[in-house]
């Protein structure tokens, strides 16, 4: 029933019906934004990515197969838009991350670092050294719980490549997480 409704909304949206398009996307608007936000950890970037995802969804609506899940389709588009964004921003991000790292490590004591950081910053610390592909693979597989196959299809890479990047990402996260714990341990010991 729900699938048929979505198919009808897709047909109306294809005829240029703006309200049908809005109704179609409405249940997923938070999911789209939060997926982009969890990948970038920046609200403004997340909104830009979501905008791009919505534009792509409208543009490529004709390619959507009505027998498939619209939810999966729109999330794949969002993941792809986020991945493209990460690749574009890679050099800038590395530069900013390096500046932050220097700033954090030189200006803050371990105690200050751990106590003052928000969860967001702890995540950023753990994900700092992930490449865009590793980050995208990790976010899709671990955070959004895509299967290996869905992740490979979304990012247009092989399943083996997904496993390789996933393994590297988890190793890097673990290493950073332990650095964070060392800082906490250092702070607690003071």
């Amino acid at each position, binding site marked *: 029933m729900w699938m048929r409704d979505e198919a009808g909304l897709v047909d109306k949206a*294809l*005829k*240029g019906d*703006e309200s049908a*398009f*809005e109704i179609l*996307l409405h249940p997923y*608007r*938070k999911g789209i*934004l*939060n997926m982009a*936000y*969890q990948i970038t*950890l920046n*609200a403004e970037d*997340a*909104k830009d990515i*979501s*905008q791009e995802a*919505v*534009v792509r*969804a*409208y*543009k490529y609506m*004709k390619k959507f197969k009505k027998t498939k899940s619209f939810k999966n389709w729109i999330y794949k588009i969002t993941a792809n838009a986020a991945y493209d964004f990460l690749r574009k921003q890679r050099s800038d991000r590395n530069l900013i991350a390096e500046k932050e790292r220097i700033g954090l490590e030189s200006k803050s004591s371990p105690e200050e670092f751990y106590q003052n950081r928000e*969860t*967001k910053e*702890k*995540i950023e610390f*753990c994900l700092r050294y992930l490449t865009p592909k590793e980050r995208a693979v990790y*976010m899709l*597989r*671990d*955070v959004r719980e895509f299967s*290996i196959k869905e992740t490979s299809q979304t990012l247009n890479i092989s399943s083996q490549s997904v*496993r390789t990047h*996933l*393994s*590297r990402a*988890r*190793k890097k*996260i*673990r290493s950073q*997480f*332990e650095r964070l714990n060392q800082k906490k341990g250092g702070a607690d010991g003071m």
Partner: protein
Amino acid sequence: MECKKTLRLLPLLVGEDLPEKKASRVKSHLNECPSCMKEYEHYRDLLEETKQWIRSETTEWKAKEWADCVKKAVNSHSFKNKVFIPLSFKPAWAASVILVIVIALSVFITNPSLIKEGSQASQSAALQGEESQKTVELTLVSQETGHKIKWILNKEFNLEEEIK
């Protein structure tokens, strides 16, 4: 399986991402090796905690932002423009037209007799037009006396009228 190999495969095992056969071999090693098992549990908990941090990070649309987002998407693309000639086919259309023109020009350049044949054809058409007339006038003039006789003949060249 050795501890070294097991530890190398742990990042994939913690997410159940190893192929079944390999996973069962690693798991059987874990059951026999307390230090690898401890490492596995630590890895799994640590990644779970990171995932929970990330999942706890959420943000919200403002109503107007979402409405603008949808509006912008709809305005950025029109399906109606693509009914007759989709954008992706426009270069193909242009290429086809250019190809036809080039072929036509090359035919006339390499074989100009076609142009002459064309003009002859138009002349013969004119003659045919004349023949299709109902009557033919024939005027005979004597060079010695200057006397004129005008015959009007029908389609079968039978004399219809004679004017002296």
